């Protein structure tokens, strides 16, 4: 974590986390199902420290994108609390959603649909500063500046329309758009998933450079562990709307605790022909988030599942006293009654 230059908007100081999420919950009601709902995000708690990059990983449909939208109040949480730099979000006293959006921005996954097709990209970038009260000329000036910062020549690319740009160029514009309002925290929702591998590396390097230049805090959402490893300080692993493991990047990659994290790590494709993965470490699709399994939600695909996993939902707990690395698994809770608990 780099030392932060003083930001006049900084209220709590370095010790105060940028964002605290406490028991965030979002259930989407399913029409015509008689009151059932998709449990997209279920009691998720975490903190994002100032200047750090928190990686969020998980399979498709595990609630990553909903979590991203919850953090910006683009989706209103059903329950739980968000605290931004010491101020509760959308509460009085606290920070209003409008004010939150001046300090937190988002980069979307789909670079095609995230830019207005009928607007030159410089206007798309200028739109944020414009609606936040800057004059038209000043907003245009900021847009020029930001396009340059993301490596696009403002004169050559600014007047273009999105369909005249490549995927990587569009994603640069999206990054410029997010940064144009001068946020302190940026939520990156799969920003490189739709890009070629070579372009992906360029955009990731750009993100690192911008983070340093603007003292940003990132929440980086991805399903690609290699990408997360490259950029993140800490990782949050999600499964079916729950946090299953949360810890420093090195700890997660070297000593994954939760069977799901282990499976995710093992399922990364090997580039070494001598070490082919013969058997997929995890099979099948995740269960339906409308009716998640009782107890531990991973038990239906877990090779170590026992009766206790069916009975009780494991809480996110520290492992061997290390508060920074937590996992929600009975195997790591000595008193849980799981036969492997003692060895954990």
């Amino acid at each position: 974590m780099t030392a932060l230059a003083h930001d006049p908007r900084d209220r709590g100081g370095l010790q105060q986390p940028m964002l605290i999420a406490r028991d965030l919950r979002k259930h989407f009601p399913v029409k015509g199902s008689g009151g059932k709902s998709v449990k997209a995000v279920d009691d998720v708690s975490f903190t994002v420290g100032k200047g750090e990059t928190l990686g969020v990983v998980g399979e498709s449909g595990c609630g990553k994108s909903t979590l991203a939208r919850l953090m910006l109040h683009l989706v209103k949480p059903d329950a739980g609390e968000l605290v931004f730099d010491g101020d509760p979000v959308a509460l009085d006293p606290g920070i209003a959603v409008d004010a939150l959006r001046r300090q937190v921005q988002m980069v979307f996954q789909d670079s095609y649909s995230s830019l207005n097709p009928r607007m030159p990209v410089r206007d798309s970038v200028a739109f944020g500063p414009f609606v936040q009260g800057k004059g038209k000329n000043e907003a245009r000036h900021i847009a020029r500046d930001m396009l340059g910062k993301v490596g696009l020549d403002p004169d050559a690319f600014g007047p273009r329309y999105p369909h005249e740009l490549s995927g990587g160029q569009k994603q640069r514009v999206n990054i410029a758009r997010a940064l144009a309002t001068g946020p302190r925290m940026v939520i990156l929702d799969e920003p490189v998933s739709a890009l070629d591998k070579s372009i992906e590396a360029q955009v990731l390097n750009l993100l690192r450079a911008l983070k340093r230049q603007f003292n940003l805090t990132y929440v980086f959402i991805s399903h690609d562990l290699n990408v997360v490893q490259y950029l993140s300080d800490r990782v949050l692993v999600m499964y079916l709307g729950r946090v299953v493991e949360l810890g420093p990047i090195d700890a997660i990659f070297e000593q994954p605790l939760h069977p799901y994290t282990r499976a995710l790590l093992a399922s990364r494709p090997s580039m070494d022909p001598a070490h082919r993965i013969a058997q997929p470490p995890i099979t099948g699709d995740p269960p339906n988030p409308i009716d998640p399994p009782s107890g531990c939600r991973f038990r239906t695909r877990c090779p170590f599942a026992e009766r206790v996993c069916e009975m009780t939902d494991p809480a996110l707990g520290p492992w061997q006293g290390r508060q920074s690395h937590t996992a929600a698994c009975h195997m790591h809770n000595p008193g849980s009654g799981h036969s492997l608990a003692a060895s954990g």
Partner: protein
Amino acid sequence: MTGYSSVIPAKAGIEDDAMPVAALDPRFRGGDGVTTTRPEPFFEEQAAPATRVRGYWQSVFYRLRHDPVTLVFAAIVLLIVLAAICAPLIAPFDPYKESIVGRLKPFGWRGHPLGTDELGRDMLSRLIYGGRVSLLMGVVPVLIASLVGGVLGVIGGFVGGRINTAIMRTMDVFYAFPSVLLAVAIAGAMGGGMANGMLALTLVFIPPMCRVAESATTQIRALDFIEAARASGARTTTIIRYHVLGNVLGPVFIYASSLVSVSILLASGLSFLGLGVRPPVPDWGLMLSTLRQSIYVVPFVCALPGLAIFITSICCNLVSDGLRAAMDVRM
């Protein structure tokens, strides 16, 4: 580290962010316009030099200019419009001047190039003046309906939920009637006359217009750039103004242009039934109706108003098709 280490440098391996990816792999060349020869800044994008930047409407006009069929029919429409506007200047006779002796005469009779009608009035002059009413009846209802239906559709589509359901179900009620029947019913209930005819046509066109605007808005609303605009703190009205209208205008405009010919036809139909313009005002539909009885006396003269309606509406339709093709730029 397994996997993509050849492309994504491992964290430990790269401390200096300014080091280009290419430096790690000598085989790496180019990619997304990045030059490997310039070290600083490594992520600068190169503009393709030959591409001329062209805005949306510029590219639409460019395509139109290269579409001879649409241009020809647009010229015909323009000619008809000009003739209607300049009617007093180009009409050879007074369209209201009757003649007892010169009734129902064929083409070219005593200086009347297109003959005379059942009251001895000059057909050419009446056709030229009739174009005024027909075009007005074709354009005005569509314009008003686009405005009202468009606004309702955009509001419904963007706000969604109950408001949308309320608006669209109300439109469905109007949809349940065939459009001709609805126009006749409304015009009949309110009485004849040009203003009532226009009002009837406007009411007929609002529901389909609303539906087009609503479906376009619903599509746009689901896209990420709307969410991004909201994330930057924009109010709903601002988002609609800057991000929705520009994307909805195209489909609405195309649909409206195709409705013009329908409107001309329906207006003629109303006049034909005596629900539109009142005699002796020259109108193509009305002329067709009154000349009907004389079809065996001067068949070609009687067919002229029908021909005028046919030509005008088919030209409008073809121009509309050309516009649709030109505006279908991949965006």
